[in-house]
């Protein structure tokens, strides 16, 4: 980029560019190598997977592991379960979080600061400690093997983050905009939908995607509260993949399942990338 804009600087900076390139390559290798390893493993034939010395770059490819996932196991069902739970809990977190954040930011309710502080405290609390208590509650309410057993905790755990992010976002929206809308004759509902919501979309995407990724990847709750095969989510299903015998670890199918489980997230993030960046940097630049 710099070289394109300032051609005269280009020659001077060849050394710098070289170093930059090498550094970027190293970082990329460091963070993407495990993913690459999984991807390659998922296409390797079984002999290559267990071969010594290790085969890094296979010469024989197979779709066998993927086919196995979808034929021998109800993998479509797992994907549906994960997607269903993640989408519902994300919508709930945004549906409850956005109005709460707006109220805290704009209507300044009595004790609003205390509420905000406690929300912040809640986010500091490690979610895993809630686990035993939640288990008791799930048993008492007979929610075991019910999607609600996952949807409710996921929503609850993500609500504080949603409220905090959206709260700061609403706060930096100029109040004059709402006043202008009132004078132009918008009623409260029209104002929210036609003026505020379009401006909030980037923040909603950002928090929504974070919530979605959390719900999609969550393991412990999903492992404990759901035991019926038909209702398991992807992380649990992947962990429970078993080979032909107890002593065989099915590396191929696990790698394939990991790829299948990650792919939707990658698509999602790539698709909404621009919106997310806008959301993360919202307020950084004067609009």
């Amino acid at each position, binding site marked *: 980029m710099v070289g394109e804009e300032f051609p005269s600087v280009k020659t001077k900076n060849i050394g710098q560019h070289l170093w930059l390139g090498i550094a970027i390559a190293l970082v990329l290798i460091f963070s993407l190598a495990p993913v690459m390893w999984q991807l390659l493993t998922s296409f390797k034939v079984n002999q290559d997977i267990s071969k010594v010395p290790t085969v890094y770059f296979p010469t024989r490819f197979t779709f066998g592991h993927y086919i196995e996932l979808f034929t021998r196991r109800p993998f479509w069902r797992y994907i549906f379960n994960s997607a269903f739970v993640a989408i519902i809990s994300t919508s709930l977190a945004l549906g409850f979080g956005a109005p709460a954040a707006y109220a805290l930011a704009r209507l300044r309710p009595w004790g609003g600061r205390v509420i905000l502080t406690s929300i912040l405290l809640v986010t500091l609390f490690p979610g895993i400690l809630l686990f035993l208590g939640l288990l008791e509650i799930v048993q008492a309410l007979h929610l075991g093997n019910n999607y609600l057993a996952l949807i409710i905790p996921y929503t609850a755990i993500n609500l504080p983050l949603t409220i905090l992010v959206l709260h700061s976002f609403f706060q930096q929206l100029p109040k004059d*905009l709402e006043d202008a809308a009132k004078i132009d004759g918008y009623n409260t509902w029209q104002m929210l939908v036609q003026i505020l919501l379009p401006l909030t979309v980037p923040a909603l995407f950002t928090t929504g995607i974070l919530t979605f990724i959390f719900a999609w990847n969550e393991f412990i709750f999903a492992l404990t509260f759901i035991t019926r095969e038909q209702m398991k989510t992807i992380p649990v299903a992947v962990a429970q993949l078993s080979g032909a015998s107890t002593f065989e670890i099915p590396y191929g199918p696990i790698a394939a399942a990991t790829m299948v489980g990650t792919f939707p997230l990658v698509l999602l993030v790539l698709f909404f990338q621009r919106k997310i960046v806008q959301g993360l940097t919202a307020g950084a630049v004067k609009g």
Partner: protein
Amino acid sequence: MAKLELRNLNKTYSPKVVPVKDISLTVNDGEFLTLLGPSGCGKSTTLRAIAGLEQVTRGQIILGGEDITYKRPGDRNMAMVFQSYALYPHMTVYENLACGLKLKKVPRLEIKQRVAQVAEILGLGELLQRKPGQLSGGQRQRVAVGRALVRQAQVYLLDEPLSNLDALLREKVRAEIKQIFATQKSPVVYVTHDQTEAMTLSTKVAVLNNGYVQQIAPPASIYHEPGNLFVAGFVGSPQMNLLTINCKQNHAILGNFSIPLPKLPTIPSQIVLGIRPEHVRVAQTGEVHPTVKGRVCLVENLGMHNLVSVSVQGSQSNNSPVLRALLPADQNWSWEEITLALPHQNIHWFDVSSGDALSRKTSNCSD
């Protein structure tokens, strides 16, 4: 097109925070009223109360004979220009201008016509498809004015619309605003803390301080006949000389010099003399106006003029009164002994305790 009237307006947030204490004023059709005052004087709160954005505590807002005190902002048919412009960032300029009309269910063809008309007046034609983020400060400001104009409202409210522009642009836009609103028949209420804007734009100025109206008058009267000490000190730059001095019989004693007082029912022991620096001049030989002698203690160069501070000769040399005079810049005034004339038609007298003007002019005192 209607008369706007405020009757005893009061806005109380808490017993200690009362930005608007008691404000009554009238704005007729075609009038351009400026609410002028320092920050915290209640001018913005008054404007927001007129718009309906603040609920008033006491008092009435009457528009064209109808009490609108408790009407929702959207039902008042007013248009407002905000200091921050408050353009909708996700809409194009066209949509920004049109959205208020769409909500009022104005037919599409008429919306198009009215937007086109306003766009032509303000020179926004090429910008209609852009978003506010792609506009410069001056262009955004014009869109904000356009959004108000296109509404053809009964009252226009402008809240410091020029304060975000740089000095040169501000002068240009000020002239534009004056021309645009001169052709409008509806009352305009304009809020500013900038006295130049108030003087140049308005047909009537209301000087506010501390939640009360200090004086409502045309700009020239505000300048030439300030109603009290606050108005005298706030309007005009450089600030008016305001000196608290003693009286002896029917003369006021300034240093070693005496200035005849106007005819007053009772002669107070002390009085405040006010005279603008631009009205103080160097005494000529055979001067008919009261004169004072003093030493120049400070010269400030303002370009066209020098602002010269003169410490008046007095019996107590340590706290002699200082008069500031605006004198031509073509002479060197520093460290000179100088005799100044105070033309009595330009002297203002104020009561020491109430601050009210005693007699606007001293011209009737010489007989």
